[in-house]
């Protein structure tokens, strides 16, 4: 099977998203690609995963990487119970395309470090991220795998995505309206991508000093290291959730400043890199 259907690692970094994780995991379990592992890395959530949020569960392995405090233990117990529940659920559910779910816990280190742990733990030759508050649409991975088969030179293929809103109260926010009005997004959004492992071997890991924008920086760096980012399926296969308190991100908040400072650093490095390239040629 591995020759025809290389293992795809779906990597889900998560932090205090228990209420969304079920949907995210279920959307992977609903994929029709036959060789998938799911890697969940919990970045030190302070809220326990809730068992009744999970419905379909494949066999699970569980790991704790770091020194755990009492809260961490609690979270791990929830993971463990989830795992045991899973053994039964898979039988009741019948065939599943997912061979393994592996969950890891670490003390809180931030999204970039969490993505890097995902990469370290993943064993698939093809890699995909899924933000724990978002969902894949059915057929995503098989459509991207098919694209890889038809375009062997392609190393990363994106899909289009749509934003969706789970809190209607947020609808009036100007920023939210803007996002929702962008009916079909064409941006290269990292979590929509299926990526060959070679790309990360060449480009390296996520920059852990970035508190945000680590995915954008990674895309810039992939490009710098010769990966073409112009392959995108025309269908929407990814739904991106707009929710909760992140909407309060305003220009005068600390989050805004931290975020854009990271972007400025990325863009500055990009300009310098482009200038060096031009100089060399």
């Amino acid at each position, binding site marked *: 099977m591995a020759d025809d259907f290389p293992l795809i690692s779906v990597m889900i970094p998560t932090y205090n998203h228990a209420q969304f994780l079920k949907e995210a995991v279920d959307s992977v379990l609903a994929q029709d690609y036959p060789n998938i592992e799911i890697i969940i890395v919990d970045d030190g959530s302070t809220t326990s995963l809730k068992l009744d949020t999970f419905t379909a569960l494949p066999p699970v392995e569980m790991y704790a990487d770091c020194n755990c405090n009492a809260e961490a233990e609690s979270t791990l117990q929830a993971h463990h119970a989830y795992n045991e529940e899973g053994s039964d659920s898979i039988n009741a559910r019948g065939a599943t395309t997912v061979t393994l779910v592996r969950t890891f816990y670490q003390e809180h280190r931030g999204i970039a470090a969490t993505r890097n742990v995902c990469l370290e733990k993943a064993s698939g030759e093809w890699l995909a991220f899924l*933000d724990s508050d978002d969902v894949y649409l059915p057929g995503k991975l098989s459509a991207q795998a098919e694209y890889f088969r038809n375009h062997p030179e392609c190393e990363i293929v994106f899909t289009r995505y749509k934003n969706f809103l789970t809190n209607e109260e947020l609808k009036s926010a100007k920023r939210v309206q803007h*996002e929702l009005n962008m009916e079909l997004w064409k*941006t290269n959004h990292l979590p929509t991508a299926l990526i060959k492992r070679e790309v990360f071997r060449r480009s390296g890991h996520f920059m852990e000093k970035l508190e945000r924008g680590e995915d954008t920086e990674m895309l810039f760096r992939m490009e710098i290291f010769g990966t073409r980012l112009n392959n995108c399926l025309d269908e929407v296969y990814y739904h991106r959730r707009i929710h909760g308190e992140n909407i309060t991100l305003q220009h005068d908040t600390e989050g805004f400043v931290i975020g854009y400072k990271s972007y400025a650093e990325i863009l500055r490095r990009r300009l310098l890199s482009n200038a060096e390239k031009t100089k060399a040629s």
Partner: protein
Amino acid sequence: MVYKLNEERMFCDITDGIAIIIDSETGIYYSISAFGIMVFEKIIDGYSDTNIAIALVNIPNIPSDIEDKFKQFTNELLGEEIIIKAKDGENIGEVILDATVIAEGDFELKISSYSDVQEMLIADPIHDVGPEGWSPTLMEA
């Protein structure tokens, strides 16, 4: 006239000799370097355009069209809405320019704009990070 950074919309970061200004509404970003940064900083610090122009024309060996170039530069910043008129702005005094920047002899006043990552810059901020980190502690179920 006195101007200020359009803080409602623009994020500005000046490090390592390059100013990066990100328009959070359009996703377009701008860069300014060297001499331009020094002048730009005087503008957004609240010095009047008249006093900045006086300081510029008094630089020894500066090109004779520097005043026109400065006007163009200011107009471009206004046109892109990077700066706006400071309604209650008061001229904060005489402009003293950094001699080390002047000594480099590069008097270019240029703003470069880039739209190549427009959607990425617009797309990200709303989603991934709240004031407390990469994913806010929200909705305790």
